[in-house]
């Protein structure tokens, strides 16, 4: 199957401290390698979960994919077309096919616009319907996300958090996209409302054949909604595998630590917090001053001498299961580093030279 979205060696470096004052004072600027050679693909109607902690670059990755942030290097292909270098006007058709749903339904909707205009505007911008037909289309969209015609006349402040997020989803759907980047789309919502929105997204996904890049720090949500999951740490993908497989058999020590840190509902007899050995120590190193070798090495309970020297490449450790860790891959378990894996772009290993 051809991928809907393919990114190859996607990279975003932010320069910090290169403002006028710093330059005049002759201070050196530093580079934050927010996203550093990330490759993955999303098939039509597939949901790829992108999980990681703050500062790992998952949000930037979502923005890069949409060309909302300009990549420093790498390639983005959508539906076979290279969109990396397209200018704004040439990007318009892509903008129609890839949309975003933001985390905060309180700040991502214009407070001065009624819901009908918020949802109707993309239709007009992309001239998808005659002016007179827009209200009808808006009503259909509102109903699709579980709101009613009456909501079109309301302002965002008159709606609850869950209703606002439905408006955000309707706005994204207004242009009939094929891919939606959902950036922490349910993180600001209460448990019961979150469940409603997740169910809605799944129903819409099936009905419209939507693909998702679902960015979240919440592993429970990621597990629930994703077909495949990519785990990110300090700008790199460390593991990518089908969701069930990743949760059953995480390979990367960071993925294992992440899964072990989720407080799941237990039986109340034992507590994960009474087993200190289960939790990893330390905090994320600063992305401005990355360690040599594997970026997780400083916190890794299984690190070896080599981990401090050589950064591991993302290699195939099992069918459809890629991991960037010296514990796997090299020992040649019959699948070399270049083993073809479906649903991903060829040759992600090439990016290790960075």
């Amino acid at each position: 199957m051809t991928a809907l979205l393919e990114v190859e060696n996607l990279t975003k470096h932010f320069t910090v401290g290169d403002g006028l004052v710093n330059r005049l004072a002759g201070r050196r600027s530093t580079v934050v390698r927010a996203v550093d050679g990330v490759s993955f693909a999303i098939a039509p109607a597939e949901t790829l979960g992108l999980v990681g902690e703050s500062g790992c670059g998952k949000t930037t990755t979502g923005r890069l994919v949409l060309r909302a942030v300009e990549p420093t290097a790498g390639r983005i292909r959508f539906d076979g077309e290279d969109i990396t270098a397209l200018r704004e006007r040439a990007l318009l058709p892509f903008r129609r096919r890839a949309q975003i749903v933001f985390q905060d339904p309180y700040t991502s909707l214009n407070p001065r616009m009624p819901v009908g205009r918020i949802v109707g505007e993309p239709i007009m911008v992309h001239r998808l319907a005659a002016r007179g037909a827009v209200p009808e289309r808006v009503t259909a969209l509102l109903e699709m996300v579980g709101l009613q015609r009456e909501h079109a006349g309301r302002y965002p402040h008159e709606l609850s958090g869950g209703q606002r997020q439905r408006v955000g989803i309707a706005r994204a759907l207004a242009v009939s996209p094929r891919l939606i980047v959902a950036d922490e789309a349910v993180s600001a919502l209460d448990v019961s409302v979150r469940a409603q929105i997740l169910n809605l997204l799944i129903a819409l996904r099936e009905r419209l054949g939507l693909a998702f890049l679902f960015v979240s720090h919440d592993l429970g949500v990621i597990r629930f909604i994703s077909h495949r999951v990519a785990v990110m740490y300090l700008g790199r993908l460390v593991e990518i595998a089908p969701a069930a497989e990743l949760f059953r058999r995480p390979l990367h020590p960071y993925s294992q630590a992440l899964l072990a840190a989720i407080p799941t509902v237990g039986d109340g007899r034992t507590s994960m917090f009474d087993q200190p050995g289960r939790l990893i120590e330390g905090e994320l190193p600063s992305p401005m001053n990355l360690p040599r070798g594997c970026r997780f090495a400083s916190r890794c309970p299984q690190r070896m001498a080599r981990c401090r020297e050589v950064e591991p490449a993302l290699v195939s450790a099992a069918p459809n299961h890629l991991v960037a860790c010296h514990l796997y891959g090299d020992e040649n378990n019959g699948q070399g580093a270049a083993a073809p894996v479906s649903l991903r772009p060829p040759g992600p290993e090439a990016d290790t030279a960075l």
Partner: protein
Amino acid sequence: MTDAPLLDVRGLTVEFETDGERLRAVDEVSFAVRGGEIVGLVGESGAGKSLTSEAILGLIPCPPGRVTGEVRLRERNLLALDEAALARIRGKDIAMIFQNPTASLNPVFRVGDQLHEAMALHLAEPRPTLRARAVEILTRVGIPSAATRMRDYPHQFSGGMAQRVMIGMGMSCVPSLLIADEPTTALDVTIQAQVLALIRRLARESGTAVLLVSHDLGIISQMCDRVLVMYAGRVVEEASIATVFRAPAHPYTRALIDCLPRTEATAQLGTIVGVMPGLRALPPGCRFHPRCPIAEPRCTKETPALRALGSGHRVACHLASNGAP
């Protein structure tokens, strides 16, 4: 541990006067916390859980607030104390940590000075002794090179490290009760686990009871001995952790548990229709009845009282019985 509770909250009610209206945000909440026990207070936004914990500490500005009922700490009603007497208790007998650690520390003072100040307020000991204690405390909460970090300012600490400082500060006078209001909501999951493990270990070591406010049932399940479930200002269920997750008696508790994405795959999540009612439009009878899947006519009229269902298990539902309602 004695039979007399450490903290005994009776009929705690918090009201706010706005636009000539009196809104009741916390309605007749009663519960007890025994010495050394970790009790969870769980609910969704607007349930009144944070207000309950703030009312216990006397942190609600009155007016516009109005706090009634009793909050007894070792038989002493905190609501009857004046501000000076309360200040002697806060930080010493009851410590608190909040959601946003960097906002809870004063940005213009060194962390060591703030820690020192908190201790000097309640402990009559010479300065060098307190300094040494402060370094010891920071080391105990897992801050590397504590003596050096004492001279740093709060912005030089990460969220996780700042929360460790807050925990150290809270535990510095060995309080009998620690109130932690969403202490890890602003932290990443691996850091959250470290901080929660720290709270649990310190509390157990020093015999401090904890009232843990959280919206996260997973955290409650892993941290607490007992839990109180709040909905629209009222406690709807109280039970041990083992009971509440094995045999939740209130339909709201059950629905809340069903809403959680599990680690095993499921086709659809359970949901609760609608949203929690606002304080201006509280439904009569049971406040959950408009969203309740099993509501009967009397649920729309009679307010269910919190009644005992088994040992340590209380529920406010007309239809709950032992086993399933």
